[in-house]
């Protein structure tokens, strides 16, 4: 059993996805049950599916000083950092603590692999990269974090976490450990993934992509809709911001089962959930809302619905918001963390968009449409390939477990 965790303050957060730039747009889409999915207009060759594409990424050019980092993923990163005053909040923290006392820990599944794909589409006649693509930093998994470190002027610990679809949930755990040990005073966490051929054709090859908008937990669900997103949060010690929402706990565990399908009994997912509850000092009955991983793949939803049924009372509300954003892969953890935080802030349980004929395996916990109620404690589940599971626990300021 992990030790009880001292909560951390989340002093700023933001998200940009197919349902809009920044928190106000996200809340508006959630309130009106408006999906951001559209027919695929992205891949370099036709692919019959729906995608959660962010509008305006193409226009979000980087400042001249950062031009060497130019690529779609870093454009989305820059667009995301510029929402909700997040850049200013990081600059203020940098003034307060010093650039070397803030960690930068971001998750991504594919970083800017889209730029490497582009380089391969237009190789020079001699078979090498074109001159404008000879930028080593954008062809590495660390591209996102290298760019963000330069854009934010941070000089502390700086790490890419890339565990597929749990990446930007696990960053909260790494940040908490570094703050607890006194290595840093604050941490910028989050994640970014952008649409690219690798994930569209890759998940398609695995027969995991639906040709219709994804239907999480629906009896007729037949696969995911891939999305893109950028999201960030600033974590500090709770005593500096007693009015801010809090990270109460986190859990991480491995399935030890299969590279691309979850453990049939949700073993790792349940271990991560128990670990998060124990660290947060919570009983399952105290959880008001769970934002589920709910990808709309046959297996994930079956395993996760069973986990919810056996772990929580009917009063705990649960939903997947992948029907809004699509599955934003390495960015899913942070996007859904911000939705959990908005659930607390606005008393909004987002409905499980796309689940019009609920799978009978789903229990009474499922919120098929929006519900308005006070939320003190919200969890967020994120599960990735390789059997990599994470669960985050958030609470309203001043909540005492």
């Amino acid at each position, binding site marked *: 059993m992990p030790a009880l965790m001292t909560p951390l303050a989340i002093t700023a957060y933001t998200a940009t996805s197919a349902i809009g730039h920044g928190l106000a747009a996200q809340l508006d889409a959630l309130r009106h049950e408006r999906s951001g999915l559209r027919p695929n207009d992205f891949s370099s060759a036709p692919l019959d599916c729906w995608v959660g594409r962010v509008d305006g990424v193409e226009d979000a050019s980087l400042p001249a000083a950062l031009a060497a980092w130019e690529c779609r993923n870093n454009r989305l990163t820059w667009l995301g950092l510029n929402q909700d005053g997040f850049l200013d909040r990081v600059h203020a923290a940098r003034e307060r603590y010093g650039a070397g006392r803030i960690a930068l820990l971001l998750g991504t599944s594919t970083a800017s692999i889209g730029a490497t794909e582009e380089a391969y589409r237009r190789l020079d006649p001699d078979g090498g990269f074109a001159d404008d693509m000879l930028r080593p930093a954008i062809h590495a998994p660390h591209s996102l974090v290298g760019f963000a470190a330069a854009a934010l002027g941070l000089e502390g610990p700086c790490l890419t976490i890339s565990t597929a679809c749990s990446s930007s949930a696990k960053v909260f755990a790494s940040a908490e450990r570094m703050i607890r040990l006194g290595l840093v005073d604050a941490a910028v966490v989050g994640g970014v993934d952008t649409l690219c051929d*690798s994930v569209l054709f890759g998940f398609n090859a695995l027969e995991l992509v639906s040709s219709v908008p994804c239907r999480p937990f629906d009896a007729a669900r037949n696969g995911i809709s891939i999305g893109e997103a950028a999201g960030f949060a600033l974590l500090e010690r709770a005593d500096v911001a007693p009015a801010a929402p809090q990270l109460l706990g986190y859990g991480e565990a491995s399935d030890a089962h299969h590279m691309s399908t979850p453990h049939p009994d949700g073993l790792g997912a349940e271990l991560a959930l128990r670990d998060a509850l124990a660290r947060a000092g919570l009983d399952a009955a105290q959880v008001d809302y769970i934002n589920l991983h709910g990808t709309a793949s046959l297996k994930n939803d079956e395993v996760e619905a069973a986990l919810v049924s056996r772990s929580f009372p009917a009063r705990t509300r649960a939903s997947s918001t992948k029907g809004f954003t699509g599955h934003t892969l390495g960015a899913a953890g942070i996007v859904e963390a911000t939705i959990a935080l908005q659930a607390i802030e606005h008393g909004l349980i987002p409905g499980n968009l796309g689940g019009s004929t609920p799978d009978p395996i789903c229990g009474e916990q499922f919120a098929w449409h929006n519900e308005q109620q006070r939320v003190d404690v919200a969890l967020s589940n994120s599960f990735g390939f390789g059997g990599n599971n994470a669960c985050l626990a958030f609470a309203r300021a001043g909540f005492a477990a």
Partner: protein
Amino acid sequence: MNTLRVYVEGVGLWSPQLADFAAFTSLLAGSMPTLPATRPGAATLPPNERRRAPESVLLAAEVAGQAITMSGRDPATLACVFASAHGDQPITDYMCATLAQAPAELSPIRFHNSVHNAAVGYWTIATGCLAPSTAVAAQRFSFGAGLLEAVSQVLAEQQPVLLTCSDTAGTQPLLEVTGCSQPFGCALVLVPGASAASLARLDLTLTPRLICTELAEPLAGWREANASAAALPLLTLLARGHGRCQLDAAATLGLQIDMGSIA
């Protein structure tokens, strides 16, 4: 800045020139160790997986298995931090080349092997490990940044952690941007306290100064040929049994490491 103290219980190492940490130690002592097999053996993986797994997975599993064997610990219980600067370059090359020509023909197996956490995924499956596992990257600072993440897990959770850092070689045209021309991998089993299995005590301090320890022959140039070989100054300390080195943990952050003997 406080000092981070951890203990090393196991070391793994593989390159085309060096089969293990003992070979590395004898190389430093001036002898010519026997060359390893052309592919890492990765004996921890079941035979089926060993046949199917890409070289990046074999390399990480090989060094992880060596370190675990030396430590005598049960791998099923160890949290894992697997670092790599570039992930699986041959798969990146295959995927980008296929996507440029015939995207609908992309191999599903190669796609799921392309995730950065493929190696740690195979490892946890092979060892029945339910503990937390992570896959990290930080360009040419991947070893230092991965070490810092592993040490923070050891100390914050008071648990042993298996750290690996490995990269295989790339081919053109990707090689021109990764610069990774030689395979290299290493692994450490790091624990919070001294025990009969302790090999060394490490005291780590974060420093804003970037002065990466120089590498003498025959190791000079290895770091240029593989980002994971940034571990060599620390591996040299472990082979010699004493001393101090400095690694880069980020573009603006150094990691000073003092090695002490086990009291």
